[in-house]
Each structure stands twice: as C-alpha cells, then as structure tokens.
C-alpha cells in the first residue's frame, strides 16, 4: 500500500490526501512531527528525503518527494478516468505544468507567510504577502476570464486537473498568513467549485462548501 509521510497541518501533504481521496486510492500515513519536533530534519527522515521536506510517498519501493511531482505520479498511475492528468493531451499537459510551477510560487509566498504567522518562521513577511497578492491577482484574472469563457478550472478542460489541486490548499489557507481573499471573488468561487468535487475532503483550516447542484 502507498505510504504517505504526512503532517496534518501541511497544505502540501493535504494535496496528496485530497487527490487520493478523490481517486479512491488507499494509503497509510506515517506521521512526521514537522512542528514542533522538526522531525523532517531528523537523521531517519533525511535518509527518506535528503531535502528534509514533506511530503514523501513510498509506493511499493518507489520513493517520491515533492508534492507536485507526486500529484503527477498518482494521477498518471491511479486515475482510471484519465482526466486529472491526461497523458495524451499535449496542450493540457503544458498548461498543467505551467500551473504546477505557479503552485510552487504560491507555496513560496502564501505558505511561507502562514509559517511565519502560525509557526514563527523567520521570513520577510511583507515580501511574502506582497508576492502572494501579486500571484492572486493573476490567478483571479485568469479564473474570471475562465468564467466568462465557460471554463470552470485552471486549465482548458471541462474538468478539474491536478493543477487545481496543486494551487488550492495554500490559496485556501492564505488567511492564516494574513492574506485576505476578499479582493479575489473569482478565486473564492473557484474554491467553492473545487470543494464540490466528488471525494473532496477537508483539512484543518479548510471548511466545506454547500452541496453541488442536484444533477
């Protein structure tokens, strides 16, 4: 069975729990005391991931690190619908990669601000918040035009992809870093849509939305 090295309050770990819940993939959790224990920097964990970062999955001996990389792997391997990471659609794959990289930018700004406010990380908080707002303006604009063009998701498809999952958590958790989403109404609506995907689960800090429209 897949082993997920996991920390409950990590948005990057949550991405994987969320995708596996949506795909119905079973997994077991190896809790890592990221805070306050800093277990991700412990000797045993550095043997699992020399970068000392969460999450990591171990799927029958294949050990993978990096949330975005693991999303690619899990969707490519376990998504029987073939929609979360459509392997044969070059255009979509390009778009997905673009937004996976964007998700790294959100992690570097919004997630860092959250670590500063909640777990007392020493970062330039003003720069993190300003950087997150710069990205959110871009994201909101993209999603607003998506709505105008009849597109609900980040990429040009009629269904969500792992790009949506990669960007979602640290957008949803941004207020814990003092980054309000009030100025981003299209982002707020997209978050509601993602929360209505079948198999959606929450993490600490993220509330459920109302139910989807009856089919």
């Amino acid at each position, binding site marked *: 069975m897949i082993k997920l090295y996991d920390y409950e309050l990590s948005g990057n770990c949550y991405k994987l729990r969320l995708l596996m819940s949506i795909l119905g993939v079973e997994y077991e959790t190896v809790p890592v005391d990221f805070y306050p224990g800093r277990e991700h920097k412990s000797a045993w964990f550095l043997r699992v991931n020399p970068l000392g970062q969460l999450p990591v999955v171990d799927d029958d001996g294949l050990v993978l690190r990096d949330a975005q990389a693991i999303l690619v792997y899990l969707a490519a391997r376990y998504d029987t619908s073939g929609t979360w990471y459509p392997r044969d659609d070059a255009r979509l794959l390009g778009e997905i990669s673009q937004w996976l990289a964007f998700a790294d930018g959100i992690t570097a700004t919004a997630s860092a601000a959250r670590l500063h406010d909640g777990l007392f990380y020493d970062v330039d908080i003003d720069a993190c918040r300003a950087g997150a707002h710069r990205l959110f*303006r871009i994201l909101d604009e993209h999603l607003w*035009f998506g709505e*105008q063009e009849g597109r609900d998701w980040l990429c040009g498809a009629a269904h969500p992809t792992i790009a949506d999952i990669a960007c979602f958590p640290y957008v949803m958790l941004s207020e814990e870093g003092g980054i309000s989403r009030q100025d981003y*109404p299209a982002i707020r609506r997209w978050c*509601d849509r993602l929360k209505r995907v079948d198999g959606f689960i929450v993490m600490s800090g993220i*509330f459920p939305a109302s139910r989807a429209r009856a089919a």
Partner: protein
Amino acid sequence: MLDQSRNRWHPIAASHDLAYRHVFHGQLLGREFAVWRADDEYVNIWENRCLHRGVRLSIGINDGRELKCQYHGWRYSNRTAGCTYIPAHPADAPARTITNRTFPAVERYGFIWTAEEPSGEVPEIAALPEGDLLVLRGIPVNAAADRVVEHLKTYRFQPVGALDADGAEVSVEAIGDFSLTLAAREGASATRCVLFVQPVDAARSVIRGVLDKQPEADERIAVLRHHNQRLSALRETIEDAVRGEPAPAPIEPVFERVSAELAEMPQPTPHGRKATLRVEVARKWTAADGIAGFELAPLGGGLPTFQPGAHIDVHMPNGEIRQYSVINGPGESDRFSIGVKREPVSKGGSSCMHETVREGDVLAISEPRNNFPLRRDATKTLLVAGGIGITPLLAMAQALHNQQLAFELHYFARDEAQMAFRDRLDTLGEALRPHLGLDPQATGDTLSALFSDYQDGMHLYLCGPGPMLEAARRVAADRGWPESAVHFEYFKNTNEIDDSSTFEVALARSCLTFQVPAGRTILDMIRENGVDMPSSCEQGACGTCLATVIEGEPDHQDVYLNDTEKRSGTKIMTCVSRARSARLVLDL
C-alpha cells in the same frame, strides 16, 4: 466625502459575482457584508457577523434557502435574516427576534447596489440604457476612492468595434464623487463607459465598470480583456502614486447592539392575541378536495421569521380567529402559505375562509408562533399526518429534506385527491409515504408496524384528528417510545371543559393575587388584572398561553401538555386549565 456617502447607493458586487450557493464577501465604507443569492433569486446583503459570536458569515454555507454559520450551525433565513434554528438547543424554538442586520439590495445595470442608510433610489445613469450592457471585471485598488476617481479621468480606451486601432478620442461626459462617464469615439465607433468607484474602506476601492452596449459575441472577450488590461495598468499607476503617502486609518464600522432581552437569554416575549401584521391574499387555490390553499403576502415590508411547526392566528372578516400552520419550506419568507380545510360543521372559521375570502383581500394575522418546534438532532424523524394535520408536518418535512436529515413523512388520507399540496409533497421523494383509504383498524395496524422499531435518538411528530392522535400516542407508548420522543399537535381541544371551580391565583413576579370565579378562565383574570399574556387558540390546544406553576395543583383540561408534563404539575395552560388546590402560584 465619505461621511455623506453612507446615504448613497454604491455597487458592491457584479450580478455575476453571486454564483450558485456562494457567499460573496463584500465591503463598503469599512463595513463588511455577506452577500448571497437564494435559490429563489432573492439577494441578501447582511452584516458579515453571526450575532452569536461574531464569526464572519461570508465563510458560512448558502444552502439555497438559509445561510448556516460555520461555528455553531446557526441557521438564518433567506430575506428576513432571522435565526430559525440553534442546534445547541434542539428542543427550543429560537426567539424570533434574533435577526441579523440586513441592508437593502437592488440589482441594476449588472450590479448589486446597497447603501448603509439609503436616501432615495438607486441613481438613474443617463448614459446607460436598461438591459444589454457589458459589465467589466471589477478592479480592486489599494487607494482611496477620491484618488481613484481623479486618476480615472485620464482613462483611455477604444470603443467597441475599433479595438485594434489606437487613436480613440476619449471625453469625460459626467463626473461625480464616486463615478464618471467616459465616451470613446473612433471613426463610426462610439462607446460609453461608466466607471463606479466603490469606497471599500478609507484606503481601498473597487473600480466597477460597465459599457453601454453588448459587443458582438466574437468580440465580447476581447473587449473585456481590453478594459481589464488598461484598468489594471491604471491601477498600477494609482497604487504607485499613493504608495509614499500616509494611509488613512481604516473605517471602524459601528455594530448595532442586540436587544436587551436577547442579551440575557430571555423567556419568549409576552404579547396577547394581537394581529400585528396585515397581509394580502396573493393567491387562493384548491390544494386538495375540500382544502383551500392561501398565499399571504405582506402589505409593505417583509414578514417575520418563521420556523417549521409555527402557526399564525388569522383574524377573519367575520371576527373569528383561527390558527393555521405555516406550510412553507425553509427560506420561503416572502409570503406565508396555509391550508384551510372546510369543516362540515363550521362555526364560521373555515367557511368564511372558503366562501368569503378572495384573492386581493386584506387580512390581519399574528406573528408566527412556534409551540411545536422541530428538533434536528434526531437520528431519524417520523412525521405522521392525518388529513389536514399535514400542514405543520409539511413545513418540518421540507426543513429536514433541505438539510438531508433522515426522516419519513407518513400521510394518512382518504384518497389521492385529498392529499394537499401535491407540488410540495413531490419534492420530498422517497421520504413521502402515503397511506390511503385505511379504516381505523387498518390505520392502527399500520401505525403499529411503523412504530415497531424505536431506537434511542428517534423522534416522532404527530398531527391529525383527535381520535387518530390518541391511537397513535397509545401505539407509540406500547411500542416503547418514551414520551419525550413523541411530539404532537391537536387541531382543537374536544375535551368538555369544566369551568365550575373557584380558586385563588397569585402571580409571583407581578405581586398580584386574584380570584378566578366559575365561568371565567385564569387567562381572562390575568388580563383583567393588567398583565399582558400571549394566547392564540384559547382552547388548550396550541400551547401559547403556557405558564409555570410554582405552587398548587393544576386541574389540566388541555391537549397540549403530555402526560408526564401534566403529572409533574409544573406547567399549566391558562386558557382552559384550572386548580384542584385552593390556590395556584404562577411564575408571572
């Protein structure tokens, strides 16, 4: 400028911002709003604070009919913003005056408009025809509204039809404190753009633009992108310009205090048999054989919040007063719907409603009162209706259905044609279980089977004709249902009232003592001594005139209290019940 702006209407969202079952997070002049569109299209603009513990309602759940707070699950009704359910106290009906602050909402020119204290109507914009406008993407700006307006005078854009050119002549046609109208002309193309600047807070604004025409379908997105790109660029300029300036302090909104009675977790407020509302019969129809449906719409203003199980007193043109349950589902708060069965031996109530009252007539009604509250913490709820007893249970069924709670509605009726409010029943799906044409014996057997599987946490609600209720309560008791799980409402009290006794009543809190002579009720004498007391049916069925007994032994003659409550001797229905002891002390 910001001081007077409280009286003005401002757009605070685009119509398209209010997506299906979404809660929009708005703000105007420092005050935050939770803005949501109900499934019936009504737009609610509320203070963004749950009255209980101040949690933002913009993180709450819009279920299409009610807004649910994430913190404690309090539910607030569409339109009225009244609290309909407090899960921590499932057996109680919330005081209906727990009502969130609402602000006026008008949808016009593709925007949602509001004002803190509006004077007048939403402004007429000369440049904008009604319909067929193009609403631009709102651009939030970190700058004060007056600075934004000042910069917008320099806004340059191409008219629709000439996007590719770059020489349009742009003129300012009108300018106000919070808006300006610009016109761009290039060759034969001309477009007006009206820009509203929403003062979000002292140093934050949103530019909300609208064009006076809808471009051709293939040009629409290009026009939207054109303005988005140019307004975004202008935003950079504005934000750069104000960056070095001292930011004005955020506006501190003043929150209204809750009423004194709510601050102390009050008893229900006393009020007598008063018809405080005027309604118009907006619709009258045949809801089933012998049952007329009435939709009652308010004459000006809105209606108060109701809860499932609530009833209203209807004061009829002939002077009679009758109680009817509100059959509405949750959030249907624009009108009250009731069902009136024509009684074969009518004392003038049902026949008046059937024969005399017509669409367009004005009636006086009381505020809704809930003496038959619905718990929503049951593991499963059984609703059992006989005939017109469907009415309170139909409201309950719709509430349970909306929250996806486990329930069954068992509806005993003579035949299909006698089943009332078919359209509402049909929305309940599998939960509706009709039982048609059963004789008393077969009814008893069916009830016996229905009640056979009592488990802890289940609750039963009964409403129907007296004999059926008696039978159902007996069967439930036999089948092991505790009295605390069996809730019932009688249409009327068919007990023979014996009012021959004479006794003394003392009102502990009012420091009054008086005699109740034969032929008079406790309620009469309470009122005669100047103490206001709510009542409704005045025959011991509805539960409104309940009082707490501190001392003495009541002589119960009502059908509202259950046997345990009667035995405990701590409650009394003052409209019919009397005293076995020489003296009763009531907590009034």
